[in-house]
């Protein structure tokens, strides 16, 4: 299973980026092997609007099945839902810790967006 985690840096030790659409990086972690890839989201950082939708398309292309982030707005949530991707919000600490929390069931997928638009 592939998990996309929003990250402030390029390593598993980097802190989780609380923003989804304007996250600095996506770290794609293979939950089984622990291997990971880094995707730069820089071009999305400056998007005036629709950053959440764009980011959702990106992680859909990366074939992620789960997204772990801090907050997720309604449009991104809808897009991720349509792509069949589960969304986990409220993550903090490092990317590795967030993945661990998800694997042990401390963090679970959310049923609804947790912020209004423009935040994520």
């Amino acid at each position: 299973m592939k998990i996309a985690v929003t990250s402030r840096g390029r390593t598993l030790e980097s802190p989780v980026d609380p923003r989804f659409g304007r996250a600095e990086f996506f770290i794609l972690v293979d939950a089984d092997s622990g291997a990971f890839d880094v995707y730069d989201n820089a071009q999305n950082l400056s998007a005036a609007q629709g950053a959440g939708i764009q980011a959702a398309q990106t992680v859909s292309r990366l074939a992620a099945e789960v997204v772990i982030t801090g907050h997720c707005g309604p449009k991104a949530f809808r897009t991720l839902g349509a792509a069949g991707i589960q969304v986990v919000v409220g993550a903090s600490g490092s990317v590795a810790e967030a993945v661990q929390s998800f694997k042990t069931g401390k963090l679970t997928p959310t049923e609804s967006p947790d912020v209004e638009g423009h935040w994520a």
Partner: protein
Amino acid sequence: MSGETIAYRPIGVIHSEHTTPEDTPAQPVYAQECLGRAEIIPEYADGLRDLEGFSHIYLVYHLHRAGPAKLVTKPFLQDVERGVFATRAPCRPNAIGLSIVELVRREGNVLHLKGVDVLDGTPLLDIKPYTAKFDRIEGTRNGWQDEVDDATARKRGQRGYRPKDAAQNPHARTLVRGGKEVTLTPGMTIAIASGKGGTGKTTVAVNLALTLGGPVRLLDCDVEEPNCHLFLRPKIKNLETVGVPVPVVDALACDACGRCAEICQFGAIAALKNGPLVFAELCHGCGGCLSVCPRHAIREETRPIGAITVGQAGDVEIVTGQLRVGEAKSPPLIRAVKKYARDDRVNIVDCPPGTSCPVIAALRGADFVILVTEPTPFGLHDLKLAVETVRQFGLACGVVINRADIGDSRVKDYCAAESIPVLVEIPHRREIAETYSRGQVLVQVLPEMRALFADLGARIMNWNKSPSRVAP
């Protein structure tokens, strides 16, 4: 010779306030107050020397948004088909445009122009000076154009654009209001705006409409919270639902190629593995996705965004736009309300508060803007923003100070410094607040208010004659 292609390179670009072809006046005479500029490519700048000696110049340009050529076409001014070379319609074999405009001043390679009937972004091919010595011909025959009377020509020639200088109107009529003579100019549009809500914008709109009475149409474009009808309690005559087109994807026909998402300039379509996802609230209805879909899997449906009611309250007609709850985009509804403006009435537009897109949609094309404010630091701050917006569109404006005695003189000082006329001041009085809170109309209860609003009406109708006329 025949069949040979001649290639020209633009010498610059024309900028104007006209961004849609439908709202662009057809001729400079219908665009007298429209400002614009021509930016000449620096390598040609030397060629502009001595041009400022001429008050008017010819612009020769490429009609870049013209449709395919039609040899027989209906001109803007008439519903009769004419040979294209007997018209100035844009759909010509060589889409060349020609305008005589006023050269206001030159700043290096930028020419500041007036009377610009040209679409923003038009490529400029050539400039020539206009000279009355050679170019003015008296006693001409004007073909089919002699059949079009001036009023029709003016109205149709302006197209979506309304003149800022509406005084020379043959249908003007003088009424006595609040003991004052007020000459109404039908076709004139007065917009009432304020930098924020709660300043008394609706009060001014309702009271001005009732004071002028008779030939007035009140267009409530504050579509998120239309309030005018609460005071006027109109009898509803007509209801229209307003919708915007949105693309709908046929999942069976779609092969998830993602081209629709790629073309959309507004990020309204997300391309996912299993097909596109449309965000109706972001869609601008441009039709781009429809035209690129190789599988014709997209069709357009109408999504309702609000409703318009037309009602009658005494002799004032009121048109109210009401946006659907939760709908984010109001400009299409505001534009639909404004289509109810009539050329045989004075149209009063109650704008949404603020200075963002909806306000601009409501303000566009107004002949005069009344900015309602309060004499407080906040009021002044919002007024400055509103003035900036109004000036950006080259509209004339004046200020109404509400609750004039609660604050200081800074709003007045600012208006004086910026030469913006203070039209009237509404005092802060108990009776006024009470009348308002009972849902009653000031001019129907307080005679001195009737005089005040008659004065306001007279000042606006005469604004273009007064020496304090505001430069855009």
